């Protein structure tokens, strides 16, 4: 990656689309531009807020030919867009002669070009890494776009992941801090602290714990929520919808997500093939619309929970679910029916329901007796509220 030499000194940036393209609906452009900014906010604690009027940090315009900055556009093909580095204002201009498209192999993908241009708006120059977003050449529509590690290193060299102390000035051409800083403990999360009922909770292969709720997700730390969260699920796990029913990471390092009658498989945050698939196809014997799922580290078997019942799934057996299943959750002393989420963590299985959670001891096959007693407040013990 290459840094131009200037960066923003504030982390809360605003933008305005002053002139929309002719061929796309405004609401669709708003959405794609927002998604393009999220590419960068995903790896920093920068935030981008759209304004409709007034002064903003980054102004976005779709223009044709000469448009007042002495750098005229050249019609279809050739130059697609250009943007200004922070020290020059950060504005981004797009050639309105291009056939801009959204989620389509036809035309020029607005999201990818916008994400690239916003890289310039934030201080990144062109990279000589071919796979990087900041490489100068348009490489065609990529439905499963993922930011390259080169881009991540570049943006974090500029902004780290920590709140920068603001001097009040908005841009500077002073030397950048090239160190990537450790995120500070997250502040109390208003959304989770006011309503800590979650959709699912799981550990990634890298050892991070994530909580999903609606369209958002949070990364958990030992102190609560990591800074910079919540984030949009769809911005990190491309192709994955919100309101996920259940998730787990298997011993092969792959993470499985379940919703309704479908499931998705990811390696890290990259989709691992053609998904979604039917649960009945990949997990024969497991019902649709499950409540939660866990992998018991003791035997590597997968447990699915729905309503008053649970199923044990053993990928190594045929059939993978024995005829003796489902069984009643009430067999497990102290665990309620209709749970929201479950997670295997540090040798225990945790069950979440409403605002409370239960710690299940696999050796005694019952909820732990402890002080304070279970169920405990999820908000307090898991989310740092």
């Amino acid at each position: 990656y290459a840094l131009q030499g200037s960066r923003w000194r504030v982390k809360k940036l605003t933008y305005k689309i002053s002139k929309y393209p002719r061929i796309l609906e405004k609401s669709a452009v708003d959405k794609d531009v927002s998604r393009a900014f999220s590419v960068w906010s995903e790896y920093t604690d920068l935030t981008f807020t759209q304004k409709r009027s007034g002064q903003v940090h980054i102004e976005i315009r779709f223009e044709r030919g000469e448009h007042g900055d002495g750098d005229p556009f050249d019609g279809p093909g050739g130059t697609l867009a250009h943007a200004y580095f922070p020290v020059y204002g950060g504005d981004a201009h797009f050639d309105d002669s291009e056939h801009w498209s959204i989620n389509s192999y036809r035309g020029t993908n607005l999201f990818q070009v916008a994400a690239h241009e916003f890289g310039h708006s934030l201080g990144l120059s062109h990279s000589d890494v071919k796979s990087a977003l900041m490489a100068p050449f348009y490489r065609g529509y990529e439905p499963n776009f993922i930011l390259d590690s080169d881009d991540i290193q570049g943006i974090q060299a500029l902004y780290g992941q920590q709140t920068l102390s603001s001097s009040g000035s908005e841009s500077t051409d002073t030397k950048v801090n090239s160190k990537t800083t450790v995120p500070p403990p997250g502040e109390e999360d208003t959304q989770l602290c006011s309503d800590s009922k979650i959709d699912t909770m799981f550990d990634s292969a890298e050892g991070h714990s994530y909580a999903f709720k609606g369209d958002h997700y949070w990364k958990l730390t030992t102190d609560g929520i990591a800074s910079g969260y919540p984030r949009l699920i769809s911005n990190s796990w491309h192709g994955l919808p919100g309101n996920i029913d259940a998730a787990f990471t298997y011993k092969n390092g792959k993470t499985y997500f379940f919703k309704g009658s479908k499931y998705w498989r990811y390696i890290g945050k990259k989709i691992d093939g053609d998904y979604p698939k039917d649960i009945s196809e990949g997990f024969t014997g497991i019902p649709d619309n499950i409540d939660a799922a866990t992998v018991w580290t003791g035997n590597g078997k997968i447990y699915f929970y729905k309503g008053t019942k649970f199923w044990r799934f053993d990928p190594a057996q045929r059939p993978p679910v024995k005829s003796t299943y489902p069984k009643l959750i009430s067999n497990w002393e102290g665990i309620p029916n209709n749970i929201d989420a479950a997670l295997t963590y540090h040798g225990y299985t945790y069950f979440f329901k409403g605002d409370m959670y239960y710690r299940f001891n696999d050796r005694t096959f019952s909820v732990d007796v402890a002080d304070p007693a279970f169920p405990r407040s999820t908000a307090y013990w898991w989310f740092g509220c």
Partner: protein
Amino acid sequence: IPVTALSENNAMSYLSQFGYLPPTNPTSGGFITQETMTKAISEFQSFAGLNVTGDLDNETSTLMSLPRCGVKDKVGASSDGRSKR
């Protein structure tokens, strides 16, 4: 020496636009030496990950014809960089 071939003219314009050559001077007709042109092509090839031949070969011409971002690849070598309005 004068660069007369159309493709070389286009290449010169391209290399100038993206920071590998000084901006074309309309009063001098855009004359540059072959050595300068070869060096600029080599720099572009190196940046783009192509074989560095210094020649305007097919691979290089093809890459130059791809849609791309209008921001210079090299800032400072041939201009003061992009200024705002």
